[in-house]
């Protein structure tokens, strides 16, 4: 189920909220687990078993690591930790990368390999990373093992962030699992956040995505430069508003149930360099890789050579995490290289440039990055890059481009404003004022979003693949 669907908004959510609010405190976790399992089963009824397995597996692992640590048997604790990591990565790799591995073997060796067509369980990239954070942190002594399996299941299956994050580390939720209060203030804030996320997803991301979808199916040889950039910019907006909108909705829903999830995006498109961009984009994923890969590998403490190696490992993995196709790997390596160049070569020069040039530099590479991300087919990618840089001989602009620009100028302006810090600054300046007016605007956007959902079957959710 996706949040931006009528089935979620008018069946799942009201029924779940009603049950959750009327039942006594000690039942709330159980209600949430049942609701989450239904939510998950909605898309993939049979894959619910993987999730249940994952829950029990890491519950037991966590308990065992706790017991061995208490007894001082650190080697046994380590063995269980490794078992947990291998188990989780095994599940993830099997379901996510089997198809790619088989087809790669086939195309490299020509061997007749069986085609398994393993379907990707929704959210598997997210919840395997979440449960791993738990066993790793129990092993590292950061958190106590959870004894209550319902509380643990609440964490693993928690539907608001199940499908597309944020990747909530157990450490961030530990106390909330057993003791959380639902206040009207918090629920109302949750509703506000949900309205914001929904509008970003439905009004901005889907509309920008529709433009990209029309451009990407054109013959690349006929795409003039301006049109190619319009497409790339629209995809850039689509992926940001889609993903951050979904995170907003997750955080808002979390609040409705009394949880405080970590933020996942912090206006990434205002960044002045790539390093800053990655501090602002998909924060929970970068944090995860930093905590559980980069730092354990030694981070920057073992010399420059090792640091560069570590960075490339982290970024290769980050890229591949995004999808089982080689363009995602290339996309990760692209960022690894950019970050290394930035860190060791031109950071000092860059910092002296005027802010606007820093910003143009960043967005140029970010947009190119998204083109790489969007094009799974390398030959299409190559053709599209040629179009971007005017090597297709299709001219600079066409009548059709002008029409598309004019027709969507309001959308593009709205996207620019919403990716800038303008609205945030206004809301901070007017804090505590115009409350009702602001709420009316948000509710209005929510109602219009509902109309858009109903009014269009066009509602694909980009992050399902990961």
């Amino acid at each position, binding site marked *: *189920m996706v949040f931006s*669907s*009528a*089935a979620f*908004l*008018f*069946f799942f*959510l*009201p*029924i779940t*909220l*009603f049950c959750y*609010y009327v039942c006594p405190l000690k039942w709330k976790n159980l209600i949430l687990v049942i609701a989450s399992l239904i939510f998950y*089963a*909605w*898309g*993939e*009824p*049979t894959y619910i078993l993987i999730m249940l397995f994952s829950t029990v597996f890491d519950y037991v692992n966590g308990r065992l690591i706790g017991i061995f640590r208490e007894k001082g048997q650190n080697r046994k604790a380590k063995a269980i930790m490794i078992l947990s990591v291998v188990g989780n990565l095994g599940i993830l790799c099997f379901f996510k990368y089997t198809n790619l591995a088989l087809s790669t073997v086939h195309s490299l060796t020509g061997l007749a390999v069986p085609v398994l067509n393993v379907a990707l369980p929704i959210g598997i990239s997210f919840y395997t990373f979440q449960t791993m954070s738990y066993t790793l942190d129990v092993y590292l002594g950061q958190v106590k093992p959870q004894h209550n399996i319902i509380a643990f299941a609440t964490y693993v299956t928690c539907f608001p962030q199940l499908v597309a994050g944020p990747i909530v580390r157990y450490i961030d939720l530990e106390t909330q699992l057993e003791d959380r*209060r*639902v*206040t*009207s*203030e918090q*629920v*109302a804030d949750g*509703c*506000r956040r*949900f*309205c914001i996320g929904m509008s970003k997803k439905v009004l901005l991301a889907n509309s920008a995505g529709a433009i990209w979808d029309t451009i990407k199916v*054109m*013959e690349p040889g*006929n795409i003039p430069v301006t049109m190619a950039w319009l497409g790339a910019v629209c995809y850039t907006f689509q992926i940001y508003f889609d993903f951050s909108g979904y995170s907003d909705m997750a955080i808002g829903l979390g609040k409705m149930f009394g949880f405080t999830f970590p933020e996942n995006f912090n206006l990434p498109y205002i960044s002045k360099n790539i390093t800053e961009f990655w501090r602002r984009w998909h924060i929970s994923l970068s944090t995860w890789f930093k905590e559980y890969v980069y730092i354990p590998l030694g981070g920057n403490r073992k010399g420059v050579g090792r640091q560069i190696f570590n960075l490339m490992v982290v970024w290769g993995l980050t890229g591949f995490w995004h999808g089982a196709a080689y363009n995602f790997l290339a996309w990760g390596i692209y960022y690894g290289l950019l970050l290394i160049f930035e860190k060791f070569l031109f950071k000092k020069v860059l910092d002296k440039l005027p802010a606007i040039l820093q910003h143009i530099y960043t967005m140029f590479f970010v947009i190119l990055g998204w083109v790489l991300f969007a094009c799974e087919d390398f030959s299409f990618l190559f053709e599209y890059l040629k179009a971007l840089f005017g090597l297709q001989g299709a001219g600079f602009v*066409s*009548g*059709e481009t*002008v*029409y598309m620009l*004019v*027709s*969507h*100028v*309001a*959308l593009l302006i709205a996207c620019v404003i919403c990716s800038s810090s303008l609205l945030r600054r206004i809301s901070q300046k007017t804090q505590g004022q115009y*409350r*009702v007016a602001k*709420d*009316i605007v*948000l*509710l209005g956007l929510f*109602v*219009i979003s*509902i*109309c*858009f*959902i*109903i*009014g*269009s*079957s066009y509602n694909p959710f980009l992050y399902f693949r990961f």
Partner: protein
Amino acid sequence: MKNMDKKNIPMLGVFLALLFVGFIGYVISPDVKFSEDENRYLKEQPEFSATALFSGDYTNGMNDYATDQFPLRSIAITVKTQAQKLVGVKDSNGVYFGKGGYLMLKKTPSEFKEKKFWNNLKAVESFATRNSDMPVSVLLAPTAAGVYTGRLPEFAVDYHQIDTLKAVKSRLEKMENVKFIDSYSEIQEHLRENLYYRTDHHWTTKGAYYGYQAFCKAWDLDPVSYNTKKVSDDFYGTLYSKVLAAGTKGDTVEAPIIKEKLTVSHQMGKTVTDSLYDETKLKVKDKYQYFLGGNDGEVTIKTDVDNGKHLLVIKDSYANCFLPFLTKHYESIHVVDLRYFNDNLTMYTKANEITEALVLYNMNNFDEDTSVIKLMMP
């Protein structure tokens, strides 16, 4: 919930009310089977079973049900369209919001399927070559967006219909037994008239009449003039269905009054009537079906003309309101819609002693139709 705070009441109240009222709305409002506005069947609540549940059919069915049976569905779609128009979007769902409330099908140069278009024309040419003893007319009717360029939204570019038509003309002129019917030349002299419906993708009876004039000019015939009758003035066509634009006025449907005695047989004689018009279709949403009763695979029209001329018409729906004008010129007219016609065309032609053929398609369909290619096969 604790600390109920006044300042949060509006947000909480309205937000939760929307969800719960929506839920109750689904429960109490009866399912709508068919949406007149959208001209399609709506998904109803799926039946629950264990197999359906585990295969995902049930849950997918529920998703479709929830979207399709939304209690205020039409209003929601209208709000969407209006919101888009408000922020300057000039088209929705493949339909332009033209000037003066004109809705027009959108087909940009990059959406035009050039390859298929010329392949389809090749199929027509091969048909003409095979029947070299028979005069073949080819009429590709331009559509509203190609003709009413002044009514397109600012900066909108239609694919180059008229240039394409010119290219077709010069290609077909090389064939001896083929006549290109230059409907655009006739039509463009009457741009101020209502040649196309404002809410539908078809030409009006008037538009079709100028097509008929072009046909007569090509064959040196005297065009017959007709009195028309108004059969409906609240026709909301397919383009309206796609956008449900608020404040759209209904179209007027007119039909020429035919005085000849006709025998019209549909589907190889399955049903036989004495009229080219189907009065029952005036009660349905798609009133264009009034002409010929919609698109049947095969229709035979027998007139009381006695001139030994038997016409084969290979067509799409643009022909439906055009055919009445031909009834004074042929003893019989055999109409074939290749999308629904699965018999052997050569045998059909022989059996009906066809003496002439007319291929009539509209320019928005000719690059998409996948059945024209049947003309390649003998």
